[in-house]
């Protein structure tokens, strides 16, 4: 790794392996996140996202090399990392303010009162600070968790499935909050299996598939990878006729489901889609295609998941 890249790296993982008994959960995972980026860690369920995040947060033991904020953090100092777990627990009988005060004591902060007020204002909970956490909504609890993470002004914020169980409006609010928190200064790592939730915010993408890194880079680069091939999902009544499509130039692969067929097309062949559509129309076969958003990119990695 060259010096310039090293200086700008928020997280670097080299050949990280994690076993749960005989299960190989993370297989030689190597990745990096540049500083100031909002990185989306995506993958289907059981891809190893939470395991990787817990390794980074220091909650799980692992084999391999892992460096956080190279040059800034020494040894086991975890105060530069803010971690919000997937199923974060809260002291429900405490108020939001008491909860943050307890953690500000444990983080050994100065000017506790000012910092707590400031973080509560940042996450929009200042007016609710005296209410008990048990009365908070799911979204408010997530915000409070983020406020706790921000108490130490961490350089790397790790959020494990922060959007799980939230309605679309709250999701949007939370993502704009995360975007404001980052502002190119603080690195954020967000895991999710719904890429469309974070596509407006994340400017770095890590794709995990079955415990391995399928992609690590900019989201645009990820789309380029997928764009080299394109897939069309065709709903078809006569499944036997699928194999006739193999004769069309540019059709790389055909995957048959119960009632639909996924065609993988080589986009380097001009007019391949047009040829397919022409053939389908000629044969009067009903078909539909997925949209081409970043979510399509995700589907490009994981097929129909």
């Amino acid at each position: 790794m060259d010096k310039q890249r090293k200086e700008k790296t928020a997280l670097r993982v080299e050949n990280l392996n994690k076993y749960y008994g005989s299960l190989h959960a993370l297989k030689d995972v190597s990745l990096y996140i540049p500083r100031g980026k909002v990185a989306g860690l995506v993958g289907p369920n059981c891809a190893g996202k939470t395991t990787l995040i817990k390794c980074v947060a220091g909650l799980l033991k692992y084999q391999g090399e892992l460096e956080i904020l190279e040059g800034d953090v020494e040894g086991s100092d975890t105060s530069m990392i803010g971690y919000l777990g997937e199923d974060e627990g809260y002291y429900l009988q405490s108020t939001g303010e008491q909860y943050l005060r307890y953690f500000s004591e444990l983080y050994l902060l100065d000017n506790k009162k000012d910092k707590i007020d400031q973080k509560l204002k940042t996450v929009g909970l200042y007016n609710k600070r005296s209410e008990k956490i048990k009365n908070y909504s799911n979204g408010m609890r997530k915000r409070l968790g983020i406020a706790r993470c921000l108490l130490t002004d961490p350089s790397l914020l790790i959020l494990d499935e922060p959007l799980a169980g939230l309605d679309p409006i709250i999701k949007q609010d939370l993502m704009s909050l995360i975007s404001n928190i980052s502002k190119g200064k603080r690195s954020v790592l967000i895991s999710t299996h719904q890429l469309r939730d974070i596509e407006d915010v994340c400017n770095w993408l890590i794709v995990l598939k079955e415990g391995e890194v399928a992609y690590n880079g900019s989201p645009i680069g990820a789309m380029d990878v997928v764009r080299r091939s394109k897939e069309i999902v065709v709903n078809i009544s006569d499944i036997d006729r699928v194999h006739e499509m193999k004769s069309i130039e540019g059709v790389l692969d055909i995957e048959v489901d119960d009632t639909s067929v996924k065609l993988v097309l080589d986009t380097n062949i001009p007019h391949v889609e047009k040829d397919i559509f022409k053939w389908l129309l000629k044969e009067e076969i009903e078909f539909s295609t997925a949209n081409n958003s970043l979510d399509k990119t995700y589907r490009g990695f994981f097929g129909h998941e």
Partner: protein
Amino acid sequence: MNDNFLRIYFIFKQAIKDEVQDHSLFLLVLIIFGISIACGDVFDLFTKGDFFAIFIGFIFSYMILMIYSGYLGSKLFGSEFEAKTIQNLFMLNDGKKVTFIGKILAGIFLIAFINLIILGQSIILYHYWGKVSWYKIMWISNYVLLGFIVCLFVFSLSIFISIVSKKKTLPMLATSIYAVVSFFSMTAIPRPLVEDNLRYIVSILFPYAIFFYADMYHQYLGEMYNLLLVFPIFLTFFL
């Protein structure tokens, strides 16, 4: 190092604060006083105040106190594991170490506090019967100390089950059953078992035997401390 001491102190303080705010500590003290005074009064009617009444008070008090010790272990650890709040404490620098030390110290402090109350009330009851002597106070203090160690053993057991099960109900249930079953099986322990070398195991499995066979245990008291102290220390280090 100083930072860790401070974190341990804050975790300790919060645990004590939570316990006081829950009122369970206050309730426990009330129950123990109630039991002891009731036992004392009942036996006073028949025996005109006897040393045995103190032991009956002890036996009931310690059953409650053993259940409380189990509850404390499950509350300090099991409930935090179940609510997944302990994860944030583990994220601190040396998080696991400071969390365990802070919470275990808080538990030991609370159990010691209750034991001191039992000691105090026993002395008060003696004063009421007008039989206070330094020898008897020392003798009863020995049993309070022994009871304290038994409670620590139950506390350690509860912590162990909490960590393994990551639940709050199971450790409390297990230690409560243990406390009640060992109470009712107290009289089933044959005297010879207490007299031979099995008294070490018997005193752990059936802690009430210490009080029931008080006359015999009295002579072994010194050596019993050695064995009973090993258990909580061993469990604490193991955890």
